[in-house]
């Protein structure tokens, strides 16, 4: 995937926040993902970004 917009990051963040336990690991995400996560979900530890 080369690009993700705010709606795409939102879907991922909200899914991760609603997990009963555990976390989402995203490997080699498009560069927009960490930028948007930091902008709107700073400190969300339910998502691990693996570069």
């Amino acid at each position, binding site marked *: 995937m080369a*690009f993700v*917009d*705010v*709606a795409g990051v*939102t*879907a991922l*963040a*909200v899914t991760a*926040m*609603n997990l009963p336990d555990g976390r989402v690991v995203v490997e080699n995400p498009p*560069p*927009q993902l960490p*930028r*948007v996560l930091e*902008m*709107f*979900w700073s400190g*969300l530890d339910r998502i691990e970004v693996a570069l």
Partner: protein
Amino acid sequence: MTSTVTTHEAFVHPALFYRTEQEYTRQTVAFLREGLTNGEPMAVAVPGPNLELIKAGLGGDAEDILFLDMTEAGRNPGRIIPKVLRGFADAHPKGRVRIIGEPIWAGRSAVEYPACAQHEALINAAFEGRAVTILCPYDEVGLDPEVIADAKVTHPTVISGDGRESVSDAYDWQAVVDRYNQVLAPAPDAAAFSYGGEDLPAVRQFALAQAMRLGMAGERLMDVELAVAELTTNSVVHGGGRGTLAVWAEQGQLVCEVRDAGRLTDPLAGRRPPERGQLGGRGLMLVHYVSDLVRVHTGDDGTTVRFYLSL
């Protein structure tokens, strides 16, 4: 300085008109000491030199106050409400919070000013009914008389340099939002791309290519792509299904403009922070967050959104 006129109101939003550094320091420090006495969480977002005046005036009492350089945090006036003001107030939901916000300083450009005035007006809508006090200093010597006159329209009360507070008879914040909803004439030398729903990836690539051609580099290219994606997607979903992107450079800034047939009916669109679990409501806010300036014109004939990034 004590707020004798408006302390019974939930939201208190006076303008302070100062003429000297001494007046500035005396009135802002008195405002903050009143907050210290009341035990209120406090933030100060003003241009750097004025931050130093306030810190020096407060001495050791400055420790628990959040200080932000407004020329950085509020470079784009459109992000001051969600990021600076709501950011601080929402983090302190119990009891009254007290903020000094100085979004308009001598040196704001003519292109920036309409967005600054609209920001000051929209504070009244954003904090209606909330236990928040925001004092907005205005440099009566360095700013144009028109700016001072507008401040009397965007603030329900005004405080003079000697601390006298009075009700502003001119207060009518919606009038300022409307007055600065100014038509944005097309740039004659812009590179343009008309798009529909099937063209969203192509219009992003066009924006990136034009931004690079005009000298944009590094991480801000990603911000260009993100902001263009949000605005062009809005055109497709809410703005009649299609639009036109124009890209050009002026005064050392990259300018990207999206025109479509939609109409923005919510004056606080892009300035109302969503709950963390909310699915929508971040697109226009992202444009405000990454840009140095956003200008908007909306009406029956459609909407134009321009965002500016320094090259």
